[in-house]
């Protein structure tokens, strides 16, 4: 097939209504997982708020489990009935899950840092934390606001869009070069999802693009902000 001659509309073999019905059925069939995914999102927000490199490891591990879940349950089992390329996407998500688990197993330098002084920007959650909060808390609210039925909302932990966006946020918070490994698959999915939603003429077709656009600046801000010259003495 001459792939370059095809537009996104030619490659999406189902309608927007079918996509929403798929999401609704998936959420209904796996409601306990949806609830667990949301709870996990809240846990991740708590773990990442304190800027502790030590706590990044459970964050990455929990995210890895989410990606593996989505790979099998959503992409392979659910979307696989509609889209011939779903298994390729499922493999990509599985690789991402494995990468997250691998990164979770690697030690991070920098033990618990002293608590920053009042007024220091390090006292507040990192900039990328707000992107994670958007993925966990705001994503379904935005979808609801533009008229999507509540049964077909994309939830963090089980929905690919919010999970990919949240993962990019965590990657921005991850120190070192290993963060680069965690970028390609979520960015790819965000592009695919945005293109697909564009085919459906969904009002929030642009939302999945926000995280890929922000991950670079947020990562830079995070690394720059980590160099706080003034710290409290340990006894304070």
């Amino acid at each position, binding site marked *: 097939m001459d792939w370059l001659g095809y537009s996104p509309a030619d490659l999406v073999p189902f309608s927007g209504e079918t996509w929403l019905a798929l999401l609704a059925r998936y959420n209904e069939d796996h409601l306990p997982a949806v609830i667990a995914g949301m709870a996990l999102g809240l846990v991740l927000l708590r773990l990442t708020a304190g800027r502790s490199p030590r706590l990044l490891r459970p964050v990455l591990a929990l995210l890895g489990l989410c990606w593996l879940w989505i790979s099998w349950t959503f992409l392979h089992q659910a979307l696989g*009935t509609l889209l011939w390329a779903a298994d390729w996407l499922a493999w990509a998500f599985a690789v991402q899950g494995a990468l997250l688990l691998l990164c979770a197993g690697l030690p991070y330098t920098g033990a618990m840092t002293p608590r920053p002084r009042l007024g220091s920007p390090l006292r507040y959650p990192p900039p990328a934390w707000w992107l994670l909060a958007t993925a966990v808390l705001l994503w379904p609210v935005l979808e609801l606001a533009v008229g999507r039925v509540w049964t077909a909302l994309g939830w963090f932990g089980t929905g690919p869009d919010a999970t990919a966006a949240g993962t990019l946020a965590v990657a921005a918070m991850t120190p070192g070069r290993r963060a680069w490994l965690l970028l390609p698959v979520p960015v790819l999915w965000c592009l695919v999802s945005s293109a697909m939603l564009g085919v459906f003429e969904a009002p929030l077709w642009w939302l999945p693009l926000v995280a890929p656009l922000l991950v670079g600046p947020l990562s830079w801000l995070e690394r720059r902000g980590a160099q706080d010259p003034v710290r409290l003495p340990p006894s304070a």
Partner: protein
Amino acid sequence: MSHFDPNRRRLLHAATGMLAAGALPASVAAAPAGARTPAAGPLTRPIPSSGERLPAIGMGTWITFNVGDNPDALAVRRQILDAFFDAGGGIIDSSPMYGSAEAVLGRTLPADAHERGLFAATKVWTRDGDAGPDEIETSRRLWDLPGFDLLQVHNLLAWDAHLETLKAMRADGRVRYIGITTSHGRRHRDLEQIMEQEPIDFVQLTYNVIDREAERRLLPLARERGIAVIANRPYRGGDLPDRGAGRPLPGWGAEIGCETWPQALLTFIVSHPAVTCAIPATSRVDHMRENMAAARGPLPDAALRQRIAADFAAL
């Protein structure tokens, strides 16, 4: 499903064609200017390689039948198929590329689909030239049919290997017709070469009131070579009816028995003498009924076809 008896179906369709021909009204000579011989009932066209007549308005399944196992959607598809056959529909076209569409057909086709005129057409769509037979068998099981009337190589993918497979199947009587498809105006040069060199019964290509490139060479070649033509993307994925939505038809609409732009668009397509049928896809019962009401009146001649195209372009 009923026993697949090609001879019985051929006789049924020949009889239908004779009845249609015999029912031509005496007012042919008084047909409105710009309109040709009026049709009585569903318009049918002969398949050149056999003379079997095929209803000119068929049904596609791209997107519209890819609904998985959603029970509400399946129920609507059953209604769509009932409306299709009730209105004299024949060819239903699908492909393994269309997700769950073939499986949905298998779950929603009525048990008496063949008696009601089903002409089952699907495609082989695999890069592996040796995997064609297995894929075709998978399609047959999904459709829940004893066999297909037409098998086509989808978008020329590995066409040389698959065409050999299909030719062998036709020789063995495992399929009645074989063909090859393309869409969106792609690879017309390759298609032209295949039409000139290969003994195919059908070609499927994109042809509608906007996408008329096939008129230059492929449609005349099809007539010359005795190849039936299936027009896909008659509505360009829904864009064309959207453009005409709410707009009344000009005066020629009444001349050709059309009330809406979608009907006029389909009538335009099947009025080309080289076109055997068009395969609009829909997910709505009312749209199916509207589609099947097309091409029931006098067909536009060449001059009126140009007017239709010009009026649509001006919308």
